[in-house]
């Protein structure tokens, strides 16, 4: 059984997440950790808005939060978000990775260390290479990898970079992703 889901995206990510997250059911079995690049801006209003239109409970992550199923945790601006081996969240103000803090690579790698082959990693639309290394790490640990089809993504660089690093399990159109995630959330 999978234990967690991680999602990384940048340009076009607000819209993409609005398509995926509200389509997930209230009894969705996995916790979701999200890195969305939005520069120095805070994401309070987006998180609130998304929470309002979703059945899952969505918030900006806090340090030492226990990672619980049915909850969605957004990385705060200007901090890397990591998963500890006791399934809690930690932050780091370390250097940017691919000009990004939070970085998708940092989240995905630490999540792979903890959840190993019971992790699902998703890369959506975006404008840089962040996430490609992280998704590869998830695959190396035996996890499941999914990338939005770059042909139809708002920005293709991020999904393309991910596809060039890893032999990913699923390449899907944006509107097909939530159903696949529901399937993966209950799969043995």
């Amino acid at each position, binding site marked *: 059984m999978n234990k967690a889901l991680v999602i990384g995206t940048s340009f076009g990510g607000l819209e993409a997440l609005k398509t995926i997250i509200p389509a997930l059911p209230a009894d969705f079995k996995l916790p979701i950790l999200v890195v969305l690049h939005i520069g120095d801006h805070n994401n309070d209003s987006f998180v609130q808005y998304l929470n309002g239109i979703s059945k899952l409970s969505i918030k900006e992550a806090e340090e030492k939060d226990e990672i619980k199923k049915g909850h969605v945790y957004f990385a705060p601006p200007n901090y890397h978000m990591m998963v500890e081996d006791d399934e809690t969240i930690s932050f780091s103000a370390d250097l940017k990775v691919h000009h990004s803090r939070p970085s998708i690579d940092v989240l995905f*790698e630490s999540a792979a260390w903890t959840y190993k082959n019971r992790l699902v990693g998703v890369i959506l639309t975006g404008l840089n290479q962040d996430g490609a290394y992280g998704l590869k790490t998830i695959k190396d640990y035996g996890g499941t990898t999914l990338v939005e089809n770059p042909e139809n993504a708002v920005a293709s660089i991020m999904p393309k970079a991910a596809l060039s690093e890893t032999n990913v399990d699923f390449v899907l159109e944006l509107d097909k992703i939530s159903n696949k995630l529901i399937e993966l959330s209950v799969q043995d």
Partner: protein
Amino acid sequence: MEQNKSSVIDNIDIEIPLFLEAVYQKYSYDFRDYSKAHVKRRLLHRMSIGRFTSISHMQEKVLRDKAFFIDLLEDLSINVTEMFRDPDFYKSFRENVVPTLKTYPFIKIWHAGCSTGEEVYSLAILLKEEGLLDRCQVYATDFNRKVLEIAKHGIYQTQELDKFQRNYIKSGGKEKLSDYYTLKYGSIKFDQALSKHVVFADHNLVTDHVFAEVNLILCRNVLIYFNRELQNKVINLFHESLVHSGHLCLGSKESLRFTQHEHSFADIDAKQKIFKKKIG
């Protein structure tokens, strides 16, 4: 049946605790209660640039080579900082802490984990503009002697100067940031009058004790690297060091949650993480 990989412990997760124990035994620097993901990431980075085949291999090196240990200290301490980092914090500090500080005849301040000192100079500028600097004694501490040297000299690269200026203005700065430094050879050097009241000193929050009773503690973006036990220990240390009604300022993503002293402090500005020690 497919082997369940989550039940297999990676060798590295056996090796890292042994490595940290070796570092502690040999050099008395204690990283055993740091956030594991943070330590693992930094050690893997060093392992990769040093071309070590394993953490055990690197352990052999660190036990025998002090210079290598010094490099490792750099890896494990995060020294990313900037002038007036989180300007809203400084703005709130001016509004909510300065009025109390003005009631003290003499003000002792502990800036714990000061790194390369940008935030120490930021605070000194703020205190000067509020007419308080001359009655302050600031202890700026870090466990990393290399960064303390940089902090003492107060010389910084100009590449982030634009950001520093913007932060200063957003923080409620009353003058021009350029009034406080001289520009030379592509670097800026802060006016030494700012650091006249600052003592830069080697202090390790993990292994050292209370060294003074202070009116104000700033410790921003240090606790995030610690596990709950260590956070608790350090908050105890701060509680013990503060006078009654003394202020504690943490980083924007840090809190007193899960510590023994969660209720021993009152919120002054919950969002900017400014707290005040309760009486009793």
